[in-house]
């Protein structure tokens, strides 16, 4: 009995945490109908990803499985599920909230970590090569304006983004 009560507390604690995050507030409205999974282009071709399952595990408090697993990173952010959810659960946004929590725990795929470094270093996630920059006048494009890297770094330091990324880099 005591164990069951504890379990309930844990699961509630996790879904409340998700709920309090940007993007996460609608998670508890899910009634597991599966409209999301049947609208999902990824779930159609692999059993490694199922949006309904991610919501279910989160509501059951399976924090470790959700945050350290591969699954949350397999959402292709097409928003089909969110568009069609009869309960108005913002599923794609809930997955962003879960990814944000995973990042804070240090679970982040290398690719995303590279994106984060690129933002901090260049203010852009895709670097514009010298070749492309020099090619512009030849094909009739105006020169590129400077990127606001300094302002961006101030923003990244105000949100703590740069610190989290630094910790991640040091840990790996």
């Amino acid at each position, binding site marked *: 009995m005591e164990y069951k009560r504890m379990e309930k507390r844990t699961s509630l604690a996790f879904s409340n945490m998700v709920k309090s*995050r*940007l*993007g996460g507030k609608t998670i508890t409205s899910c009634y597991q109908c599966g409209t999301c999974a049947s609208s999902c*282009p*990824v779930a159609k*071709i692999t059993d490694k990803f199922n949006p309904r399952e991610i919501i279910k595990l989160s509501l059951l408090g399976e924090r470790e499985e959700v945050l350290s697993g591969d699954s949350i*990173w*397999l959402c*292709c*952010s*097409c*928003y*089909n599920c*969110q*568009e069609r959810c009869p309960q108005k659960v*913002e599923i*794609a*946004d809930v997955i*962003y*909230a879960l*990814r*944000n929590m995973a*990042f804070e725990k240090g679970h*982040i*795929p290398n*690719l*995303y970590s590279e*994106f*984060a470094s690129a*933002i901090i270093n260049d*203010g*852009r*996630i*895709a*670097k*514009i*090569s010298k070749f*492309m920059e020099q*090619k*512009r006048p030849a*094909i*009739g*494009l*105006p020169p*590129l*304006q*400077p*990127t*606001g*890297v300094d*302002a*961006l770094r*101030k*923003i990244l*330091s*105000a*949100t703590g*983004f740069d610190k*989290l*990324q630094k910790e991640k880099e040091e840990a790996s």
Partner: protein
Amino acid sequence: MTGYALFLGCTIPARQPNYELSGRKALARLGIELVDLANMTCCAPPPVQSIDFETSLSIAAYNICLAEEADLNMITLCTGCFESLAMTNAMLKENEKLREDVNRILSKAGKEFQGSKEVKHYLQVLKDDVGVERIKQSVSKPLSNLKVASFSGCHLLRPSELLKFDDPERPRIFDDLIEALGAKSIEYRNKLKCCGGLLRGYADDLALKIAREKLVNTTKAGADCISTLCPFCFLTLDMGQLMIKSKFQEEYNMPVLHYAELLSLALGIDPKELALEFHKIRVDRVLYKIG
């Protein structure tokens, strides 16, 4: 002349000068002035939203502030940028608490989001500011007999509650604008389904499978080309065909053209001025068909 602050983003200047060229040329011909502002950054698309949503909203809001300061509405060519910026604009306009939180962050960079401007995808500008009728009248080289498979990409339409662009299940704007050029916008299976582009680099196998389906379906429907609005969809479907060739030993040779490129051709702009050599899949068969 209507003026807009152009938000160029990263992927277009980094990889698709063909898109930027056609966008600039076509919009100029139709009387839309693009203003290049200094100090813009990345728009903070899904990869940044995935790492920290608050940071992504702040970065997007910072860029909108630059347009506000210049007293201009903002225009994007990239659908990814459109989604990040238009979504942020709508969220911050609607939610006072969120706006206060973001403004606290922006104050460190000397900015304050006012919520006084709009963010529009260029397709919206074509529809609202130029209008389908005027585009029809401006066409000097109709794309007659060209069967175009339109693919609007996800982030032009969804989340519709925030983007408010077109009906997310039965959109018409893009198809109407294709037909305004004299081409035929054809139907094909799973037209609105994602291209899988955002899984590239993380789960390439899955991304390619999803992209392949789009090529199978447009080929079956007899398309002469696919038309895109987003540099990621373009990359996934154009360069993706080379990867699909090596993985599945299947060759589609399906030309992929951005709408701005089709528009430029229909407006009579010389194909030699459009840097079409940046396409991985040659577009000759489209040029041949339109004569």
